[in-house]
């Protein structure tokens, strides 16, 4: 069992990934490359560094990062300010980050032990108890560090803290199976039913994902399922119908809630900081019309007998 994992963010008081008030750990590394991903800093399994140009004081007035850097001349400056950091050359920028007084260099990923995580998690225990919340592990792909998740969830179970694993399920079933006794709720998503299109937009095979979902529902585990609704990618009638058929026929309809997450142009700044091109640049969107379209999709699922809502909620809101 791994006692340590690489975590790129710990957020306290999250309310979207699972019930109640939660602490959420984002684990680094993901085997998929979804073009709409809003967390590109989660992709690479190793620690990375990003540069925030707007926070940089300037090379001429500060420049403390350059003497601290182990490789001379590798830091790039544009108009006197630090720009995207080159993470391709296996350089350890830890000292640069430490030297920067302005938080302009952000280290994505930190090695953390289970007990370090638990210290933070336990600080908000009373909020979980009041709200029916707990801990959510997300990513990246949490199952890439499944042994760490296992240790962490065992520790949570000991403390009586509810656990939730958000995963793409693009992973070996054995990893899922090992976690089942320690995981109270699973959150996953179906990005596309067509294997070719799925591969085109995520670079991964959907067969593994769908297979894992089937096995999980066979075992009657608590599952919140999501569809990231991406315009002109997966929001067509054929795909939506196929998704509904799959949920009803293969998953036995055993989904607590199907949540439709409308496409948002999020993470652009992070792409820039990491010098990664943003794949969804070209999408033009009439927000109002799109939201209506998403609402229609939700209505369709509900007509098919699948409890479906727009957004990350599980209950329909009361009307005034």
């Amino acid at each position, binding site marked *: 069992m791994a006692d340590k994992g690489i975590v790129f963010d710990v957020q*306290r008081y999250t309310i979207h990934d699972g019930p*109640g008030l939660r602490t959420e750990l984002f684990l680094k590394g993901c085997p998929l490359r979804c073009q709409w991903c*809003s967390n590109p800093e989660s992709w690479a399994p190793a620690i990375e560094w990003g540069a925030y140009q707007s926070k940089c004081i300037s090379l001429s007035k500060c420049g403390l990062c350059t003497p601290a850097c182990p490789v001379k001349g590798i830091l790039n400056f544009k108009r006197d300010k630090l720009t995207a950091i080159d993470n391709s050359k296996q350089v350890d920028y830890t000292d640069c980050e430490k030297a920067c007084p302005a938080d302009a260099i952000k280290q994505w990923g930190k090695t953390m032990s289970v007990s370090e995580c638990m210290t933070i998690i336990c600080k908000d225990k009373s909020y979980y108890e*009041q709200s029916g919340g707990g801990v959510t592990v997300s990513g990246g792909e949490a199952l890439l560090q499944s042994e760490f998740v296992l240790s962490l969830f065992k520790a949570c179970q000991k403390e009586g803290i509810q656990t939730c694993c958000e995963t793409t399920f693009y992973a070996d079933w054995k990893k899922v199976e090992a976690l089942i006794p320690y995981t109270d709720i699973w959150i996953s998503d179906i990005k596309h039913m067509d294997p070719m299109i799925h591969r085109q937009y995520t670079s991964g095979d959907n067969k593994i994902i769908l297979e894992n979902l089937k096995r999980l529902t066979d075992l009657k585990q608590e599952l919140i399922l999501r569809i990231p609704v991406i315009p002109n990618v997966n929001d067509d009638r054929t795909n939506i119908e196929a998704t509904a058929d799959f949920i009803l026929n293969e998953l036995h309809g055993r989904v607590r809630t199907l949540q439709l997450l409308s496409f948002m*142009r*999020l993470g652009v700044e992070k792409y820039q900081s990491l010098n990664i091109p943003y794949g969804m640049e070209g999408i033009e969107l009439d927000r109002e019309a799109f939201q209506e379209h998403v609402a229609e999709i939700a209505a369709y699922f509900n007509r098919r007998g699948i409890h479906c809502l727009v957004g990350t*909620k599980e209950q*329909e809101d009361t009307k005034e």
Partner: protein
Amino acid sequence: MSNTHTTAIGTEPFDKTYGIGYQVHHTDWSPFSRVNKLRQDFLDRSYDIDVERLRLVTESYQAHQTESKKMQCAYAFENVLLNTKLYIYDQDLIVGEIAAPAKAAPIYPEFSVNWIIDEILNSPFEEREHDKFFIRNDEERQEILDLCKWWQGKTVDDRLQASLDEDQLKGSEVGEKIFQTNLYHYAGVGHLAIDYKNLMKVGYVGLIKEAKKHLAALSKRDPEWAAKRDFYQAMIIMHEAARTYIKRYAKLAMATAKETTNQQRQTELEEMAANCYQIADGTPKTFWQALQLFNIATALIQVESNGHSISYGRMDQWLYPYYEADMKKATLTKDFALELLEVEYVKMNNPTKLKDQGSMAVRNGRGFGGESLTIGGVDRDGNDATNDLTMLMLEGSAHTRMMNPWVCVRMHENTPYELKMKVVECIRAGYGHPKLYNDAPAIKAMMRKGMTLAEARDYCVVGCVELSLPGKEYGWHDAAYVNTPKMMEMVLNGGRSFNTGKQLGPDTGSLDTYTSFDEVLASVDQQFEYWTDQMCSSLNIIDALHRELKPLPYVSAFFGDCMDSGKDLTEGGAKYNGIGPQASGTATCADSLATIKQLVFEDKYCSGSELLQAIKDNWEGHDVLYAMVNSSKVHHYGNDDDYADELFKYMFECYCRHITGRKNLRGGDFRPGVYSVNANVAMGMNTHASADGRKKGEAISDNMGPVHTDAGSHDICGPTALVNSLAKVDHSLATNGTLMNLRFPQDAVAGIQGRNNLLSFIDAYIAKGPMHVQFNIMSSETMRAAQKKPEDYKDMLVRVAGYSAYFVELGKPLQKDLIQRTELSF
């Protein structure tokens, strides 16, 4: 969920949704068209200055120049009530104003006139940037000037300027504003809740009877015989005048009824007249009459003095017997009870106070302000006290959405689920009410003031967050605003002001001289001692002047201990007496200390002299140090980080220690509060840069909250971390109250889940032990404002599934997208 049982119900379902986030330009919040009309009429009226009180009071003082002060006060009050013009507004159901038309501000020359003359001549009220007031015409302008001139030399203000020594003056509002005693320097004290329960029981006639009994029993062997005689005589004159005033209203209501052609209105007016006669000659028999007596009695406190925060006590408790009796007799419906409450809520906004520019800067707003209405909580035996009125009073608040009343809900471990839900629904509506108070630390704080457990459980909130015992405490709450970062300035700079370079306080060392962090802390202690000495002695002088120049026999009658002892409130007649000055900028001081401790003494990142120079230079030319001090690399309060939180605790306790236990002239002592309301902005304008990375002129930290500078927010770990930091101090040490503002995006509280999350958050908050909390639910308007002025909105988090970012760091198109999304979500 525990506590799912209660019998208390209002007219609406307890989980009725009142909306998410405040939406402007509504005219129809209330289900009662009458209330909507009265509200709109109020909003449409202008803020005038009314000369009548000034005229009538002056006339009376001129006619009674040789009488004792108490008798002068009584005759002046009587002259006002017998002669002031009366107003009954269209569709109103309750009568009684503060001897001026609704929303017009009277003048109280007993306290101060110099600033009125000065502002009329040099910076007219009509031309203020905000808080404008209008004098009706040139004749009245001249009359105000002439009358005010007669008062020059006779007021609290005049006498005070002559009484303070140089050390006190240089620290005060007329000097470097290290502490500001403006409020009671230029105006009355207020900040009390009377014993409404007893008033309802005995009425004006009962109080007069009691005063007469005490007067008859006075012994001439008592050396204070004359003072007590005048006290009772003044009280009798004033309360008889009150009865006359009420009967004048009754007559006017009858006359108006005769003129009206509308049958329904005629009946209403006749009933209003009957209500007035009943409470003038006896005690209220119905819910409506009880509200009528409440309105008159409270308004007249504000005719006697312009002290603000005249609060309504535990209104759901003392009013309940009248509601219950009417309901049992089936002479009242819940709907009409609610309508009456809402009519009274709108009326509570009428009293308006003209403030001097200096006070206005620390205390924005043209209402009197601070009229808290306390509901919920435990009773004297410790059981939950929720009743139907508790629920109705919240509904009325959501239906009126005005400045007043400042509804305060007392929370405790057995607060019923239904009440908590209604509270959350009101909060989510985003109009800023109610504020929540936590019984456990509040009761502990009351007991620290020497009260019994049963008394402590009966506390109410007065003003913003001050704790008070209705009818038993004259707490002089809100006595001064203390700019603690200014004291910290003396610590850094050898007792000298950064603004002027002058020596202000004792030289207790500077960043040039300290050799250890312990020396810094010792210096903090010495400066706080010196400046609280100056402030508290000044406040005692002001207190003495109020006693000498403006006794308060009318309101004293509502305090049983004053009635029994023959001592006026200003003479220490109340059972409990305090003076409560409040500290602002505690986190600014705490983060300053964290910077010094970490960067100068531990990491040796810079020397004390370098840091001092950077502050003196307003951080200009010190970009690296400026960024560092504001970065996540330095410990900051509000992140559940013990290093910084311990220093916050040190500052909090340091202030409380230096205030607590000092004696005042009324036989009580000083009580510390730790809050700034919105004074932190004005105080910041007048404060040089500070060691926490604040630049000159920026706001100092607000209330119990963390530091936000132009370079960024110092709390970056979300609300649970912030609350954990906040909960590390013992709030009950601040016996005059603490204040915490929390801001949530609408998104975080939207929908059933959002509602339940907010409810859980509040439960956890109350269990952790901070004393007070109020919420801001952000609207799209706020986001648009954030786009226009991003520097003020740096800490505004937008959270989406698996993703969170600071709003102002996002690109413009995304900001727009988020704004649209929020609007689509409801």
